[in-house]
């Protein structure tokens, strides 16, 4: 790892440390992992702030991911412009949110964003149907899906407006005692 200094400048590293919940070592580890995603695209020298994006096609085609119903959604949420192409910053952000240090509200916010398929800042029945359909891999009929969604909405909809606002979502998710323990990854 002698090239640590050459990848980032000291200021860059400090900035990353400030913006994420990671130590310098973890940032380097994540960078190499990011670089591994697309070795031919990502330069080993980041001091000049290259504008590099790993295209979604690359991420989505990882064999481990091919069965994951949410791969696209995750990439979309964490990529800047919502197209699923991820820069290094996005990549770090993603793990920062997932890290143990991230506060619960932040986690809840991103979880909410992941659910909010149509980006209208509230989870509506359609969003939920997307989620349920993906989770069940299309094994439920449309009627069943809508029934389930109705029930879900019914359970969590605090203000009875037929959709889950961020507050509704936080309320519900934070009430679940193990949310904190489930929504994290130890890098």
């Amino acid at each position, binding site marked *: 790892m002698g090239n640590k200094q050459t990848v980032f400048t000291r200021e860059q590293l400090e900035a990353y440390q400030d913006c994420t919940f990671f130590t310098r070592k973890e940032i380097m580890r*994540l960078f190499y*992992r990011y670089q*591994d*995603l697309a070795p031919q695209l990502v330069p080993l020298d980041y001091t000049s702030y290259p504008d590099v994006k790993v295209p979604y096609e690359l*991420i989505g085609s*990882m064999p*481990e*991911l091919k*069965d*994951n*119903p*949410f*791969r696209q959604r*995750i990439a979309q949420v964490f990529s800047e412009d919502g197209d699923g192409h991820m820069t290094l910053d996005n*990549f770090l952000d*993603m*793990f920062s949110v*997932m890290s*143990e240090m991230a506060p619960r509200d932040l986690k809840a916010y991103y*979880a909410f964003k*992941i*659910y909010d398929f149509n980006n209208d800042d509230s989870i509506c029945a359609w969003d*939920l149907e997307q*989620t*349920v359909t993906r*989770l*069940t891999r299309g*094994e*439920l*009929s449309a*009627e*069943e899906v809508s*029934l*389930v969604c109705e*029930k*879900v909405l*019914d*359970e*969590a909809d605090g203000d*009875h407006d037929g959709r889950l606002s961020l507050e509704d979502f936080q309320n*519900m*998710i934070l*009430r*679940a*005692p193990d*949310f*904190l*323990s*489930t*929504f*994290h*990854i*130890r*890098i």
Partner: protein
Amino acid sequence: MLRTALPLLGLPLAETEAAGEPTKEPGAPGEPPPGLALFRWQWHEVEAPYLVALWILVASLAKIVFHLSRKVTSLVPESCLLILLGLVLGGIVLAVAKKAEYQLEPGTFFLFLLPPIVLDSGYFMPSRLFFDNLGAILTYAVVGTLWNAFTTGAALWGLQQVGLVAPRVQAGLLDFLLFGSLISAVDPVAVLAVFEEVHVNETLFIIVFGESLLNDAVTVVLYKVCNSFVEMGSANVQATDYLKGIASLFVVSLGGAAVGLVFAFLLALTTRFTKRVRIIEPLLVFLLAYAAYLTAEMASLSAIIAVTMCGLGCKKYVEANISHKSRTAVKYTMKTLASCAETVIFMLLGISAVDSSKWAWDSGLVLGTLIFILFFRALGVVLQTWVLNQFRLVPLDKIDQVVMSYGGLRGAVAFALVILLDRTKVPAKDYFVATTIVVVFFTVIIQGLTIKPLVKWLKVKRSEHHKPTLNQELHEHTFDHILAAVEDVVGHHGYHYWRDRWEQFDKKYLSQLLMRRSAYRIRDQIWDVYYRLNIRDAISFVDQGGHVLSSTGLTLPSMPSRNSVAETSVTNLLRESGSGACLDLQVIDTVRSGRDREDAVMHHLLCGGLYKPRRRYKASCSRHFISEDAQERQDKEVFQQNMKRRLESFKSTKHNICFTKNKPRLRKPGHKKKDGVANTETTNGKPPRDLGFQDTAAVIVTLESEEEEEESDSSETEKEDDEGIIFVARATSEVLQEGKVSGNLEVCPSPRVIPPSPTCAEKQLPWKSGQGDLAVYVSSETTKIVPVDMQTGWNQSISSLESLASPPCTQAPTMTHLPPRPLAAEEPQAPLALPSDPLLSFAFPPSLAKAGRSRSESSADIPQQQELQPLMGQKDHTHLSPRAANPRWCIQFNKGGQL
């Protein structure tokens, strides 16, 4: 008490007989029988099973007696009481028989008593929690047990070297290590018995309990290794033997797990093919699990681990494969067996302790052991937790550690193991036995008694029982996927990665292989949860008095095919609304209780005449809804229900609907009823208005929340209404007048939309009709409230309601679902037909009507009650009138009221 005393006395007697029989019995068979004996005493032939049965009976009766007093059981764990009872019983046996009998035999214990407990705990183990904490559990189970065994053994040996243990205890280092190995293991039976009553949070429980299950392998290995070392003599032990000892740890634990998984696989596979012989499904579960236990025992692997894994592994598939009834059977049998075994174990432990011939006391050894096991347990927990917390996201805090240290109970396993020692090889066996008994008693009684106050005092996080929500299920799954995805992206093969892999493997291969195809298809977890939630709602609903619905709700789980989905969904819809309301409004409950009483009274009044026809009809009605296989149960339930219950359910449902939901829940008054009401009203002096209303079409839909404020106004008007119609919602007077006309026009022609009428149920009450104008309103607004896409759902729900319980009129829109006959009768446009019916329907017994009226009036004082009461009275009336007119309708009316 008498009954408990009988076996107590009987047993010793029987025992003396058994003991004395050699003298008596041999003589009897020896002599040629003098002809045909009228009566023969054949105690010997039944002795063994008879004694077993008697002991279990004693234990069960003791349990009953303990639980007679809530105070005692809330303070003293049952295991303590049982041990004490055992001591007393043992004393009696000893006194009567002059020798100790009925002790805890290691063979019996390991072969018969232990397996049910372990199977029960394995089968019902929360698998996710278990695997989430597997690392910690394994650490405590393996490292902790090893640590405890060696430190305790070594410390005792040190104690002996110092001279604090009397020299008559002839034991070397190996003997003490052997003793340490058997005394160090936390006992699953004791832990379960005590912790189940303490209700600490799940994580803490699963760690302590998981440890107690998994340390079996370590205990078995240590015990065997030490035992064989002792038998070989320390001089003959070679280095390879130590290595073998370590290797055997893996063989025993992993081998046990493998045996368990193999049998779990077999079990799941077998249950896949039991479609036609449902009756043996529960048997298979027990047989194969027991076979796993015996197989592991036979191969001297860890039988406890085998059964635990078998239970853990097979549950998912078995539950999916076997029928609902079998599931219940398995659950209850398992709980019964485990509870029996546990009871007997503790009781026999108490009895065994009485036998002084087996033990020899040495204060130094006993005290030393007690102090050491407590101390080293605490030390071990602290050290291990410190290490574990470096890796845990949610660290175990100090309080958790205290509970974990203090929860290290020893129990019957240690006792059975110490009894198994060979006195010739281990000369200090008697001392060890005494020490073990003291340790077991101390931990179970003293620690068991104090752990509850301790937990309270330390404010340990208790387990919270929050209802499982669909949201939780959904998010859990989603998060799993998300986390797995993120781990994949980062190339980090962590816990989520492996779980994801496993789930995919399970979904692709295992589930398809091991689950019935039908079960596999339905068995999507989310849908499953949805299903369960609905059933739970239904049950709670029933508990609150919705008895009519209960039958359908209960049958839901037994409908395996997807065909039923449409129907179930409808009922679900209904139930959801009803139940949701119930949950939200606690206030209602209190109000209701008072009403219930009134209802009950009313009911009794009404019951006599009306009962039979209703019954008949109900059964027929329910047939439509309930699938064939559920028929028996349905019939039973339906028939068992009496009027009173129905009324109650009526009330509760109405209340729920009214208060809870913003959504319009319709309560349509049956057209017939209305007409009938109108007629009655006219007789009562009702204004002509009502008549006109009836003619056009009376579809009354109830609206809730919006009009609730105006209830007071409407209530008055409503009182005048007819009896038969049930109005859930309250309408303002303005709405009444205007809405009436428009509502009638709109609503009647379009059956699919349920016109919500803001009418108060009170209006419909017949007795009230005389007071003022009737208020039957169909508000166009209410119809609007129902979203277009929901309308079909509404119709379905309505139809289901009808069929289930709703009054015919209300369900009119949904008629299509019903069989042809009922449909015709129930049609929304029924008003036309009404005129003929009403006469019949409205013939109430005058006395009854009066009674209801007076009651309602009296209660009317309180505004809140007014609403409710009218509903009730209304129900009663509805029941009466429809019945007279048309038996079938009567049934429906009743049901509708409940809805």
